[in-house]
């Protein structure tokens, strides 16, 4: 508490010349470094921006925007994808209202992004899509207001948590359809960014509990459980992801008769999940090991059995510690979904579609434009994920312990 009694440091006036002298040209070495950096930056940024604005032919992206976003999903059913987006945005808004610090600037940034996309005169898409985008921004703001209004009530907070849990199955059901209410869209038609998200998010959701179970299992005193967990983890960590996918997508029908009719997307998700779970397990195990022995002893002292000790005392602490490493695992998984292009199975997620559209006769060879666009999309969402994770970390005080 001594901090509060000390006087704050004097505020420095923001003077550009002074700032530059202090930070950029404080010494000979620094001045040289600054000049070299500026020259380097210019030599990269100048040709890049010239290419982006004058040389690149973005019509390949404009003409194929629908393919890049949802693949071959039928045009008259795309409203289901939009509705899924709206649901997600509403949930994001509510969460921003309830846990303002965790969501941080992602909420406003998405509102801004959606509004800009809806309003700016890009020649990319028509009025319907603009209305959907605007609706996305609107429900985000609406949810935000709702979250702020009722965020104080614990029931509401619990409800929001459960709604997040239910969101994925609901969205998947909406996308796939259910007879006779909604026509079923075969997953073969799913593609582009939509497929990337389905693969990544489903895998994240499934691999987390499996990973935690494996981590606890590996530390178990029962030999059968711990040996199985150890073998599982070491096998999947020792094999390249491409090989796992190759096995599930291509080789499986050769070994297991009848499995060729299994949905390719499910097979890919199973492959990704089994692989990611092994890594999550190792992350979580690291967290478990960092919990001091005193915690176990204290739990025992108050009479908790081993199961309750794990669930109530150890895991909540351990999982908080491993947020950063788990999120970086998830971000890398999100990008690794592109490996299905190499492994096969006929799935055209964002990267697969980007490569394919550069082979349309009228856009032959325009692959750089398509890949740059895909790269920007990958970056936006990977960055959002790691940003939220950083806030979550700060909010839960991971670094303070």
């Amino acid at each position, binding site marked *: 508490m001594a901090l509060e009694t000390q006087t704050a440091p004097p505020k420095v006036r923001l003077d550009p010349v002074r700032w530059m002298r202090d930070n950029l040209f404080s010494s000979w070495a620094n001045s040289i470094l600054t000049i070299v950096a500026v020259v380097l930056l210019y030599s990269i940024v100048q040709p890049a921006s010239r290419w982006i604005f004058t040389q690149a032919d973005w019509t390949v992206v404009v*003409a*194929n925007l*629908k*393919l890049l976003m949802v*693949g*071959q*999903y039928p*045009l008259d059913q795309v409203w289901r994808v939009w509705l899924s987006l709206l649901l997600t945005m509403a949930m994001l808004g509510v969460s921003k209202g309830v846990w303002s610090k965790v969501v941080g600037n992602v909420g406003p940034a998405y509102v801004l992004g959606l509004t800009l996309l809806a309003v700016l005169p890009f020649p990319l898409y028509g009025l319907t899509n603009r209305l959907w985008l605007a609706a996305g921004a609107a429900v985000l703001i609406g949810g935000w207001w709702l979250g702020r209004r009722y965020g104080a009530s614990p029931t509401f907070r619990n409800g929001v948590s459960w709604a997040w849990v239910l969101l994925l199955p609901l969205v998947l059901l909406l996308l796939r359809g259910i007879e006779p209410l909604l026509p079923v869209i075969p997953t*073969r*038609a799913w593609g582009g960014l939509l497929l990337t998200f389905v693969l990544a998010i489903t895998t994240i959701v*499934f691999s987390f509990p*499996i990973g935690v179970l494996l981590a606890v299992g590996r530390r178990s005193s029962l030999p059968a459980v711990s040996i199985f967990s150890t073998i599982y983890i070491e096998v999947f960590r020792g*094999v*390249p992801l*491409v*090989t796992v996918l*190759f*096995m*599930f*997508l*291509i*080789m*499986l*029908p*050769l*070994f*297991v*008769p*009848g*499995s*060729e009719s*299994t949905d390719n997307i*499910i097979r890919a*998700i*199973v492959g990704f*999940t*089994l692989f990611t779970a092994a890594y999550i397990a190792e992350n979580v195990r690291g967290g478990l090991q960092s919990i001091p022995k005193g915690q176990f002893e204290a739990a025992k002292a108050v009479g908790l059995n081993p199961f309750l000790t794990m669930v109530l005392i150890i895991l909540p602490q351990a999982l908080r510690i491993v947020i950063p490493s788990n999120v970086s695992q998830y971000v890398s998984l999100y990008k690794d979904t592109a490996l299905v*292009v*190499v492994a*096969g*199975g*006929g799935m*055209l997620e964002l990267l*697969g*579609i980007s*490569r*394919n*559209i*550069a*082979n*349309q*006769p*009228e856009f*032959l*060879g325009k*692959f750089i434009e398509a890949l740059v666009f895909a790269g920007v999309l990958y970056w936006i969402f990977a960055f959002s994920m790691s940003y939220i994770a950083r806030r979550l970390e700060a909010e839960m005080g991971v670094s303070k312990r």
Partner: protein
Amino acid sequence: MQKVCVSGALMIMLLVLSACGAAAPDPAAISQAVRETVAALPAPEAPQVSAPDPAAIAQAVRETVAALPAPEAPAAEPAATPEPAQPAEPATGESRLDTVLARGNLICGVSGSLAGFSNLEPDGSYSGLDADYCRVVAAALFNDPDAVEFVPLSAQERFTAVQAGTVDVLFRNTTWTASRDTSVFMDFGPTIFYDGQGMMVRADLSIATLEELDGATICVQSGTTTELNLTDQFRALNITFTPLVFEDIDATYTAYNEQQCDAVTSDRSQLIARRTTLAEPDAHIILDAVLSKEPLAPAVAQNDSRWTDVVVWSVFVTFQAEEFGLTSENVDTFLDTENPDIRRFLGVEGEVGIGFGLENDFAYSIVKNVGNYGEIYDRNLGPDTPFDLARGPNDLWTNGGLLYAPPFR
């Protein structure tokens, strides 16, 4: 959670199956499939797919396969022993034809990323020569060219997909070779496009023959048969050259465009298509020399005569229709023709179609719905397309080409 359980069960079954030597699918067939899959990784026809180091994958797969027969107590689950194996083998005499007819649509393996042959259009449909031939077979089966489910396949998985039965037929700019016909367990249909490896050079180098390329730098894709053909041909001609090797097709032509090499080699159809994308298309010429034969043909799993017959003769229908002068526009006017050959062909008389287990007028369905070979060719590679490929060997035998259909009787 259910997905995970299913996968867990699959994994265990897999281990048990491979432990029970006799019940498991023929390991030789699988290892051959894997070997071919791996060997085919950077095949010349599908260079768009950039694969990681093929040797690494080969090694990884071989290890995966080798690691499978783990000592996982075969006695523990004896119930799994009588499990049937070899999914793609029609040992019981049941043909894929029955499967396809019962299913009601054709599952067709295509490249999906080769302009002019099969590529995804902005509206999500497939177009190209290969894609249209999928429609030809669908029209023969169901009188509906749209009863096709297209599956984009990479070069490495295409044959495995056929063997595993994931696709019914492969129209994937696949070169018909002896080893693919034998040890990869494929059966091939008639060639639908005769291609050959060519060489493109800058016009201002004024080079007309391969011999003049002595000492040149040549851009080529790595690990492909294109690369092997180049080496073979130049060694035969006793020419020295420096290969500039790329893994990705786009990178290959970008490098050529930036003058990193004097010449680029690939299939001639591809060279012609790619020339249109260069900065100055007219500043490049394609030499007359042909370095290799590349007959692109449909493939099906071997030892299934009834299904192979349907695919083979559906292709022949398009040749024969052009020879008769039948097109999708005028075929209706021929229904009351006196010519017995055409009457039999269109199913007005005789029982040609019945013999295949199809409708008697399956040829009419093909011509009416998709067209004859010339129409299909012109639609995808002809003068009105960016490719403007001359028919060359892909013309009727009556016009000096190689397309020849046996009689329909």
